[in-house]
């Protein structure tokens, strides 16, 4: 293990809800509304933390454990993600596999919690979530493999620092394909349009939101916060792979990356405003495309 910086983790913890706020705000503006303040996600979390949780009589300790494991696994995953010019808190050979499986663990716990409720809605959501994640996972791992192969490093922090302008100039096709694949994975893993609509009110069409329907109060806060962190995690990797800016030291680079994250959030909002959700049957096809793209990136 190499000692790294706390900075990427702190930035993530502090700004992940803000990113959600930017996305929501962008969508409001595009829709012609004024929209909620950018800090609203923080207030929502605050509000949820001060409420009591309601537990159905049919649920067991698994239901209460779910959100905790979810949040913890994402926090652990975040310690492996570098940001800007700073390496991650810890980094070791093959750490991206750990990242992928920590997220899988988090998902597993929420799925278990959903099944524990015994509600058919939640079961449906859980089954969809698992189906699509199962298809997204190969794409994610293949993307990591492509990056590792191209940069000849097998740990996230060195991989992302190794991606420089010259690396892009040398193998732009690989990186663009990986980026495209990662983008699709981000959309699928974070319940974004066109895969899932996080704001819809029709449970039948939901994937992620319907799965966490029964959680309330602090439990729901953990789930919401975890979701924001997950989005941040993926976006941070994407910003790290995107054409880099190794100039003016780590602080300047961090500032640029932060700006990049916000631009990314705005772009996400714009995409969500302009696209409709895909039919559920088409989602696997989209994920297959991601697998193909990442496989092609590995092969190049």
């Amino acid at each position, binding site marked *: 293990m190499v000692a790294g910086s706390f900075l990427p983790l702190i930035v993530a913890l502090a700004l992940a809800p803000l990113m959600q706020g930017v996305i929501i705000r962008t969508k409001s503006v595009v829709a012609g509304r004024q929209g909620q303040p950018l800090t609203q996600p923080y207030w929502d979390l605050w509000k949820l933390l001060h409420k009591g949780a309601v537990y159905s009589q049919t649920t067991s300790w698994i239901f209460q454990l779910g959100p905790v494991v979810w949040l913890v696994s994402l926090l652990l995953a975040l310690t492996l993600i570098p940001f800007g010019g700073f390496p991650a808190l810890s980094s070791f050979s093959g750490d991206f596999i750990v990242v992928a499986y920590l997220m899988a663990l988090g998902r597993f716990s929420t799925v278990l919690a959903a099944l524990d409720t015994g509600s058919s809605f939640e079961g449906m959501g859980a089954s969809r979530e698992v189906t699509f994640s199962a298809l997204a996972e190969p794409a994610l791992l293949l993307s990591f493999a492509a990056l590792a192969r191209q940069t000849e490093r097998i740990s996230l922090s060195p991989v992302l620092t190794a991606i420089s302008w010259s690396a892009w100039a040398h193998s732009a096709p690989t990186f663009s394909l990986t980026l495209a694949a990662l983008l699709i994975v981000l959309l699928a893993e974070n319940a974004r349009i066109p895969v899932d609509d996080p704001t819809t009110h029709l449970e039948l069409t939901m994937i992620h939101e319907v799965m966490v329907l029964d959680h309330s109060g602090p439990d729901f806060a953990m789930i919401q916060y975890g979701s924001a962190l997950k989005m941040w995690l993926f976006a941070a990797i994407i910003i790290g792979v995107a054409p880099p800016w190794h100039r003016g030291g780590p602080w300047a680079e961090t500032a640029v990356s932060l700006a990049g994250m916000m631009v990314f959030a705005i772009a996400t909002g714009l995409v969500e405003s302009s696209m409709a959700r895909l039919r559920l049957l088409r989602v696997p096809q989209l994920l297959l495309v991601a697998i*193909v793209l990442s*496989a092609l990136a590995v092969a190049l």
Partner: protein
Amino acid sequence: MSQVINSLLVLLVLTGFTLLGSSRLAACIRAVGFQGLLLGLLAILMQDGKLSAAGVLLPLTTAVVKGILLPWLLFRAMREADTVREVEPLITYNVSIIAGTAALALTLWLGQRLQLPSEPPSSLLVPAALFTSLAGIIVIVSRRKALTQVLGYLALENGIYAFGTTVALRLPVLVELGILLDVFVGVFVMGIAIFHISREFDHIDTDKLVALSDVG
């Protein structure tokens, strides 16, 4: 330069997947047309600087015929036949994409095995070309609409042409024009046939053309 060629080849592969994964005929026609444009560009870039008038005009003609003229013809055929989508292919789009991935793996393996006498400008060239052809064949055998089958034929032809750019630079201009003319007339005649099929049968589903058979 090799980066540009590589990127174009990646795009070529992606158009192949578009053809495999899309049910909308318009998207498929555009994908195949885009392949034509890519082929023209590739053929120009392959000549590493030694440009001659014929070396530019011929790929340009290819690009115009395969990228603009043929798609236009096919769009016309699509309107005549009043068809927008390929409905219920014999294998689903997802399976088509998986088959395409398998084909890609196969061609990448072949590309490493096959020893070309002279080093091609990109190691991806032979795999991308053969993959495009295989994608075309998958489409021909798995789709019902006559129009989609023509698109598969064109993709097959495009892949072969792409392979030809490694060796065909030494083919005389007249022959290349002849090949292009054959493909053009071929698609033209097929377009006419599609028009007749849609008028005679009110559809262009070739799996319903079963009047002639000795089996069953």
